[in-house]
């Protein structure tokens, strides 16, 4: 029920954002709307492209939502994703030529370990010295970006490559196979689907509620035998592992090699998607698709109008965040009040 409301809000916000922007460039709104639809979902290829953009967003957002429920605002996914991709690259290169059945799981695990360790760093700083998790995660992001740049100029640099800082391409066995569909959707998208199902169970689990309790009243959670340390460390490890896994997917499923732009802003967008999806797995999937459709749809808009640049997508994404943040806050209050009233009436009836 709630997720439906959220989805409605997301779509309305999306349409409004694009319409406002369109009006400002002087193009026809219907032309833009049709262009956006074509670009995002109009052809099988475009729809698959949208899904493939949405896949890592879902993964990162699911991880971020776990940390959000524990009361930590997780802005470190960007860095965790990068470190996951770095560790996966290092592992796969060290491994050399091995069959895909070995290379794929090892790459995935390396990505998760990289991301998980990187975010546990913030969690540990929070626990030990009460360093604000936002601050430490932003610094960790910064560090990850520079570590990546450094490694791409030194140890991981493509020996055969030119001046561009990038790694050697992964061996064919280490690449995630494509699904037999038009567009670049890889097999690991099915893994993400599985993770969504697990997240759905977790969302309603007792453990998740205890994490909520910790997020609001830590002493009540520790009285249930769950220490703050275990919650902070496990939730930050899980959210980091999710981002790291997304890093491996971008590496082995999309880009095929490590390069400075490997994260493509997915870490930050994932946070946005988690907030838009209000921590609910289904909400997150819908929000991720909506968010991704702004990128793919913008290409369609550019093609349809010829005057509106594709960067309209990025602007719309920012506008959307603002609009939905307001909607979410207002909706939350109303839902609570209305529910109280409805139940009250029933109780006395």
């Amino acid at each position, binding site marked *: 029920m709630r997720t439906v409301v959220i989805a409605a809000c997301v779509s309305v916000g999306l349409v409004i954002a694009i319409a406002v922007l369109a009006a400002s460039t002087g193009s026809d709104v219907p032309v833009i709307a049709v262009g956006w639809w074509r670009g995002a979902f109009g052809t099988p290829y475009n729809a698959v492209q949208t899904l493939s953009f949405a896949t890592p967003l879902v993964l990162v957002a699911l991880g971020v939502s776990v940390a959000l429920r524990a009361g930590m605002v997780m802005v470190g996914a960007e860095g965790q994703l990068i470190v996951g991709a770095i560790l996966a690259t290092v592992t796969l290169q060290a491994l050399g030529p091995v069959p895909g059945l070995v290379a794929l799981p090892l790459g995935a695990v390396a990505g998760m370990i990289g991301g998980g360790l990187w975010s546990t760093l913030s969690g540990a700083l929070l626990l030990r010295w009460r360093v604000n998790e936002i601050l430490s995660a932003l610094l960790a992001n910064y560090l990850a970006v520079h570590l990546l740049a450094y490694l791409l100029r030194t140890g991981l640099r493509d020996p055969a490559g030119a001046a561009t800082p990038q790694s050697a391409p992964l061996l064919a066995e280490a690449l995630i196979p494509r699904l037999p569909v038009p567009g670049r959707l890889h097999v690991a998208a099915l893994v993400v689907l599985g993770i969504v199902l697990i997240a759905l169970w977790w969302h309603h689990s007792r453990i998740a509620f205890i994490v*909520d309790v910790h997020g609001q009243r830590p*002493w009540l959670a520790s009285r249930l035998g769950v220490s703050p340390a275990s919650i902070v460390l496990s939730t930050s490890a899980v959210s980091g592992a999710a981002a790291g896994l997304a890093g491996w997917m971008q590496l082995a499923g999309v880009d095929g090699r490590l390069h400075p732009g490997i994260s493509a802003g997915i870490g930050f967008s994932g946070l946005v998607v988690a907030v838009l999806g209000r921590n609910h797995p289904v909400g997150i999937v819908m929000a991720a698709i909506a968010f991704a459709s702004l990128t793919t749809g913008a290409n369609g808009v550019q093609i349809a109008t010829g005057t509106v640049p594709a960067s309209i997508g990025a602007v719309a994404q920012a506008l959307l965040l603002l609009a939905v943040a307001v909607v979410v806050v207002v909706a939350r209050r109303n839902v609570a009040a209305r529910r109280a009233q409805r139940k009250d009436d029933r109780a006395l009836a």
Partner: protein
Amino acid sequence: MTTSPIVSLRAVSKRFATVQALDGVDLALRPGEVHVLLGENGAGKSTATKVLAGLEAPDDGGIVLDGDPVVMRGRADSIRRGVGLVSQSGSLIGGLTLVENLLLTHTSWFARRSTAVDMLHRAADAAGITLDLDTPAHALGVAQRQLGELAIALAQGARVLLLDEPTSALGPHEIGGLFARLRQLAESGVAILFITHRLSEMRQVADVATVLSHGKVSLHGSVSETDDDTLLRAMTGELPPRAVERPHRTVGPVLLRLAEVTAAGPERVPLRSVSIEVRGGEILGVLGVAGNGQRTLAEVAAGVLTPSLGSVQTSRDVAYVPETRSDGLLPDMPAKRSAVLRRLTEPAFARLGVLDDRAAGRFAAELFDRYDVRPRDPEVPAALLSGGNQQKLLVGRELDGAPRIAVLHGPTQGLDVRATEAVRTEIRHAAEEGTAVLLVSSDIDEVRGLADRLVVLFDGRVADQFDAADFDATRVGRAMAGLPTTAADHQ
């Protein structure tokens, strides 16, 4: 009676969903008069103050200010018209100091910090209270927060003061001081509305009384001409049961022990080398003027706060009712979620790891029945229950199922006469079942009536301790004021 009211409610009605919170209420606040508003939990007292302060709009009826009908458009409007409010739940922003909280409500474009500090100092002096102006509100005790709100209201130039249960967290010393100042303020022409559950307090300070019962005025009259029984009958429709004699309990082994504990908690005063022991079946009462380390002591005993020195023997499953009730609840979630919190890990509340919300709802409904939490609806967010009902939910959850140790900080805060007696009976009952109870309260009569032994805290230390049988009001008073009490101290 001859002066005309500054502000009055005229036949005001207010309905929340199916609850008729106010039903044709008339209330007149006159300059120079302290007006006490009495009534059970949920009678509509807070709602009446909120209507006067412009926080709730009446469905019917209206407000008359200086003889003219007015519409209060929100809090800013009522502040401008001279209505000051010290609300029951507190309205200070936790992260800001008192000075900043005052600045926040300034209606002029230029808010100068130094002016605000001056104004607050002057207001606090006028009210005879000492305030800590530069500590974030969340770090202040309940008493300091409420006094701070009072000073802010005065600094805003209030002609009408609405005090919603300002004394429920204060000790007798502070209450005495506060009352003296309230009388002075009244004499200077301020109209005061004062909500309390304690009749003795009312007799000390109030001129006229209005009793609300289920949203209706059930009695209005001068305090000196109305006796306690009449008031109680108007509040509850019956007389409260008499307090029972203290039964003799068998005392077991020491279950809760603090040895030489030094701890820095949220209060300004840390705990300094405090040792206490509570045996199973025993109630240890802790007295003291608010802010002398009680909250820190309670948190350490409950295992919420780790002391910097000394050792603590407690149990993980200690029942704890914190001083601020919302600290023990999940305000935005359905109340059943708060109700189930102590028993959550029991197998009944999950299936295949999934939280069984229905089982939680059934458990909560049963708890609501036993502790008379109203409305009987576990789906309502805890924050929307009235303060007294939140307290009943919290105390009920914690005392349910005979805990080994119970740390209760102000367990009857904000409860009406009947609910207070019910909670005290529960506390006695728990002790009979073998629970070691640490009872921290600013209500001397409560501690005296329940505890087997008493400890007085002053400035973070144990100033005195004695058996309840040796209770002596002067001795307690001296200990609470930090004066030497025993013969040994005189030598």
